[in-house]
Structures are given as C-alpha cells and as structure tokens.
C-alpha cells in the first residue's frame, strides 16, 4: 500500500499543508443571512455591475481569489502560486476557466458539483504534500440566478418550489494552501465514492446527497480510527434541513451519533424563518462561503480546533434527469486541525 494511505479511502498527509489565507464574497441575500457579517465582501445586487449572471459569478470568484491572496500576503502579477485549482456549476466550468485567464498561473479545472471545495482542497493538499507545489490557490463559487437558468427555469418564471427544494447560494470562496506559513493544517483527506440511492427528483438534492455524506464520514472515521467526538465540528456542505435530518438518521444506522457538533452549511447560511429558502442553501458557494467566511475564522478565534469538512455534490445534469436517470452523489472529507 502507498505510504501515505490509510484504510480504504483516506490519505494521511505527512507534512500537512497549511491554509495560509482565505477569501469569501457573498450576494445580497447571503449578506442578510445569519453569517452576513462574517463575509469579507458582499454585493448589494445580483448583477455585480456585469451584463450577465454568468459574468457576475466569474467576478465573484476573481474577487474571492484576490482576497485570499491578499490575506495570504501573496503579491505579484501573476501571483506566486504554483497551481490554481477551481470548479463551479456552469457548463464546462467556465467561471473557473475564465477566472484562470487573468490569474495567469497553471490551472487545473475540477468538477465535483457542490463538493468542489473539498475536491480542490484534496488535490491541492496532495500536490503540496507530494512536493509538487509550494503554494496552491483553490476556489469555487456559484450564483443563484446563473444556476436557476441553467438547471431549472428562467429566473422570472413563476412557479412554486417544493418545500424540500434548496436555494443556490450566490457567493464564492478561495483558499491558499502552502507548505510553510501559519494557519490551520489539512491533516487527512477522505475521497468519496459516487453513490446512487435511487433519488431522481432534481429538487431533492439533500436526500440524494445524505447517503454519500454519511458513507464518507463513516469511512473517514474507520480509516483514521477516530470517533465522532474527536472533532469539535463535523460540517456537511449543503444537505440543508431535509438532508441533515436524513444524514443523522443514516449515521445512527451505522452506530454513529451525530449530535450538536454536527452541522450543515446549507442550514447555517440562511435564516429559515426570515428567508424564503425552503430547506436551506446549496451550490458550490454554500460550503465555500461558510468555510472561508465563518468556519476558518472560528478556527482562528480558537472556537474550533478540529474540523471535519465534508462537501457534498449532486452529480447530475438537466439532460440526465430529463432522461429519467437517478442523481449520483459524492462527498469528500477534509480534516482541518489547528
């Protein structure tokens, strides 16, 4: 077995890379949410001075990258990073590719739907620990309206959303990983398998993704021989209310008790009582802004010391669900420790 592997799906990073800087930007609705004060930058409207929602999404990712680089004290044009790893929800991940253009650094595009944050951190951490890079910039984001028009209906179309539907977060997050510096460390990675539990309703992503999240969490704990309470916080990406409830149930079936130290970014990002978001938030931006804007700051403040970030993705396209196929899902776990 490879030297740095642990169990069946986990990697133990020998010299754990550090998160030396992060940036988060969020849309107007997220700014009014419970974590609104935590984001580095918020925008008063959804267009962000651009001509299209897609361009707005791109600007958000670029702004998040600039903030992350600034916080990591990385200057220069092009910035002194060895790789830019990014992904988003747009067809052919154009927000990432178009953001990579002005950055002018080697780029690897990733697609993991809403699990992209965990995926980019995993690849980035392995690049650094493997000795292939000193510094890596990871980014992801999503835009509510850009996603709506691509995955669902025109934005002005009048219809009722199902009570378990989720609201795609408008926002982006970026992180700089480095071999040296200061910040929390990425110690372990558990890469998820693609899982299909038979859910085919594209509005039911929380239910589709919950089994993948629990599979990855259970595997991570087994591989690392850790217990649930090893972590101060286990946080899933965007299961939202319905998915979180299911995740707790599924975990219980595997004799894992997910108590108050288990949270979900989709639940944290919006206030369900004040904001009409149904089950909660979703999208690449959901875990990105909660992690970069809130969780990493909580770690810096000493409130969280051991975090297991489990980003979850629904890997479908409008074509696959219109052709009646199920929604395959994935979850990637990243252990971040101070």
């Amino acid at each position: 077995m490879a030297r740095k592997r642990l169990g069946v799906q986990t990697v133990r990073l020998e010299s754990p890379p550090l998160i030396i800087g992060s940036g988060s930007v969020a849309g107007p609705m997220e700014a009014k949410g419970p974590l609104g004060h935590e984001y580095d930058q918020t925008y008063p409207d959804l267009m962000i001075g651009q001509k299209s929602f897609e361009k707005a999404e791109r600007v958000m990712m670029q702004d998040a990258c600039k903030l992350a680089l600034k916080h990591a004290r990385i200057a220069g044009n092009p910035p002194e990073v060895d790789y830019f790893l990014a992904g988003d929800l747009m067809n052919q991940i154009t927000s990432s590719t178009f953001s990579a253009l002005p950055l002018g650094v080697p780029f690897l595009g990733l697609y993991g739907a809403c699990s992209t944050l965990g995926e980019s951190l995993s690849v980035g951490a392995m690049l650094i620990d493997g000795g292939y890079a000193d510094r890596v910039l990871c980014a992801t984001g999503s835009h509510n309206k850009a996603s709506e028009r691509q995955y669902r209906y025109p934005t002005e179309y009048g219809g009722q959303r199902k009570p378990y539907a989720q609201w795609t977060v408008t926002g982006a997050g970026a992180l700089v990983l480095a071999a040296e510096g200061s910040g929390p460390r990425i110690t372990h990675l558990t890469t998820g398998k693609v899982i299909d539990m038979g859910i085919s309703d594209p509005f039911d992503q929380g239910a589709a993704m919950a089994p993948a999240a629990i599979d990855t969490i259970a595997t991570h704990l087994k591989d690392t021989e850790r217990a649930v309470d090893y972590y101060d916080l286990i946080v899933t990406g965007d299961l939202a209310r319905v998915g979180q409830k299911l995740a707790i149930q599924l975990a219980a079936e595997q004799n894992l008790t997910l108590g108050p130290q288990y949270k979900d970014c989709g639940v944290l990002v919006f206030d369900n009582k004040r904001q009409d978001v149904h089950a909660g938030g979703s999208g690449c931006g959901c875990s990105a802004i909660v992690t970069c804007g809130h969780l990493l700051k909580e770690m810096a403040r000493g409130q969280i010391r051991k975090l297991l970030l489990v980003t979850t993705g629904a890997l479908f396209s409008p074509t696959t669900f219109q052709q009646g196929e199920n929604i395959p899902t994935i979850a990637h776990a990243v252990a971040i420790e101070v």
Partner: protein
Amino acid sequence: MVKVRQGTSAEQKQRDLYKRIVTKAEGKPPRLRNAAWAFFAGGIVCLIGQAITDFWAWFMDVSTQQAGDPTVATMIFIGALLTGLGVFDNIARRAGMGVGVPVTGFANSMVSSALEFKREGLVYGVGSRMFQLAGSIIVFGVVTAFVVGVVAAVADLFL
C-alpha cells in the same frame, strides 16, 4: 437489445427502504394552503378578466363572446408586463396555479424565457428559446384541439 443492469435485489431493497425514509423526512407540502391560495388567486384573475371583457364589450359595442379575444390579449399583456417588471414570479410563488393556469401563466412562460435568453442574442436567444416552456403548451394545445375536433366531427356525423 442490451438490458441495463438494475442492480442486485439487495441494492434495490435498500433503495426502496431509503425512499420510504426520505418521504417521511420531507413531510407533505401544504396542499390545503396551496389550494386555497390558488382558488382565491385564480378567482381574482378571473374577476379581472370578466371586468376586462365587460369593458371591451361596452367600449367596442360588441357581444360578450366577441369581447373574448381582446380580453385574452389584454390578460396576456398584463401577465407579460408583470413578468417584465419582475413581479410575476413573486405573485406565483404564493398563488401557484391560480395565476399559472389562466393565460397569464402562458404569458409568463414565454416572456420569462425571452427575457432570460436575450443575452444570447436575438437569434440564438430570444428567437429560439422563447418557446422553451410555452412550446409544450402550444403543441399539446393544438394536438388536443385537433383530437377534440375530430371526435366532435365524427359525433356530428352519427348524432
């Protein structure tokens, strides 16, 4: 033809079990509240339509039946205007099929598509995507009208 493997029966059993848990966790949509909203919103739309019909019948001095066409046009105009002003989706969020089933819903499906895709240009955007949602309504409306017409014609022959 190659038969797609549907997974083992154990897998299927697990999926069925999961689906039951999911249905329970999701809870039921507030059907009664939705129905009440749709009923009253739809009623208001019809009331407005009736007022417009009466207006055209009086204004153009035609029968109520003849006033139907300008009424439909007016309702489509109102639906389109509200969509353009960005209000329609907020109304429909509560009113649901109360504004979706009347011709206002048809107007919204066309105008929202046209608006959405104007950035892709007049030809590839507005022109070709305008009927993305309304296309089905038109196709199945015409097919249904044709079938009903044939049935009516055949019935006429024998009755």
